[in-house]
């Protein structure tokens, strides 16, 4: 099960890298979603440490809540991105806009 948790760490790091590296906001939103999936994967993989019995269901419930919150946050972020693009013509945060 550590395998899945480790991949969760990997997904989080890959997402964080893309979040920092790319200026395009849609890419940042995708990166945040991938980071979220990584965290969910760690939580669910660690919930299986109960031995032979059923996994711990409390993290399962938390992750279901998390998935729904993630989709609503994504919708809000996409609207923000579109508004920014409508104002500046670009869906990016760049140094030039900082005035």
């Amino acid at each position: 099960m550590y395998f899945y948790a480790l991949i969760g760490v990997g997904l989080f790091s890959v997402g964080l890298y893309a979040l920092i590296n790319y200026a395009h906001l849609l890419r940042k939103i995708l990166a945040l979603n991938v980071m979220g999936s990584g965290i969910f994967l760690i939580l669910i993989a660690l919930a299986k440490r109960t031995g032979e019995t059923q996994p711990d269901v409390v993290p399962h419930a938390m992750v279901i809540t998390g998935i729904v919150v993630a989709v609503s946050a994504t919708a809000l972020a996409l609207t923000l991105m579109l508004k920014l693009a409508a104002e500046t013509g670009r869906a990016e945060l760049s140094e030039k806009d900082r005035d």
Partner: protein
Amino acid sequence: METLTLLALSFDALLNLSLLYLAWILLNCEDLLKAIVLFVAFGLLMALAWVRLDAPDVALAEAAIGAGLTGALLLTALAKLRVIETNKGTTQQLKQDSENFQTLHYMTPLALLLVAIGLGYVVFSMPPISAGLSNDVATNMGNSGVSHSVTAVLLNFRGYDTLLEMFVLLVSLLGVWSFGSTTSQHETTPGPVLDTLTRRLVPVLILVAAYLLWVGAHAPGGAFQAGSVLAAAGVLLLLMGWRPGGYLSTLPFRLILVAGPGLFAITAALLYLLKGQLLAFPVEYAGIIIFALETTATLSIAVILAALFLSEPPHSDKEHI
């Protein structure tokens, strides 16, 4: 038994490595549309991972949201963005700017590697066997009013999580609405095939949502999964070109929108006044309370998610201020 373990292990290894590879490619490819399609495929593989980790409830939520609604949301947003860029004539400029950002400070990968190693260390230093809260859940299941443990946790033991989540959904919809409407897209007529597909699929989606809500009391399923499937029916209708128009601002619609969070909050307040504890359901009524809460939550979640997809604030024809 040996072969079985080996087969399961290679399944896991293959799934995990392709998840990581897919994440890397989707975040680093040039074409945004390709990135979104890859993200949909990524959600699909995540659902298989949840299945392998004995989390069918999470797999259901991921199948409905991660592989379904998020994909539709992202694709629609990308289409709107392209329209804005074409109108503003900024497509070319954007390309040049992205190239400027390709140059990366050499410290960043190093710092990220440290983050990854640190996280990996923390994961490995956790005790290998830990029951977590599973024993507490098992001993209290009899008092929860339902026989499925995930539903018991979501609606009873940690009901406040769900209560707050309903408000998060509502607030994010209000946030989207407060920005006003974005570019309206030119909608073509759907044509006979799409028309038939929608006419057949929407009733099936509604039926499956009702089934998931009902089955949630004793098996994987419940309000979130049912709400997302119901929202998918709404999204399909919106994609066909159906627009609720003035209906969005009518009282029944607004009531459905707040019914889930509202009923939850009222139940919490009443129980606090009567028993001194938030959301501590009396054992004999727990089943019926959970059923009522879940039904209204399903409707509210579905309408909120579909309205988030539409992302246009309601405007009544009467208001001219």
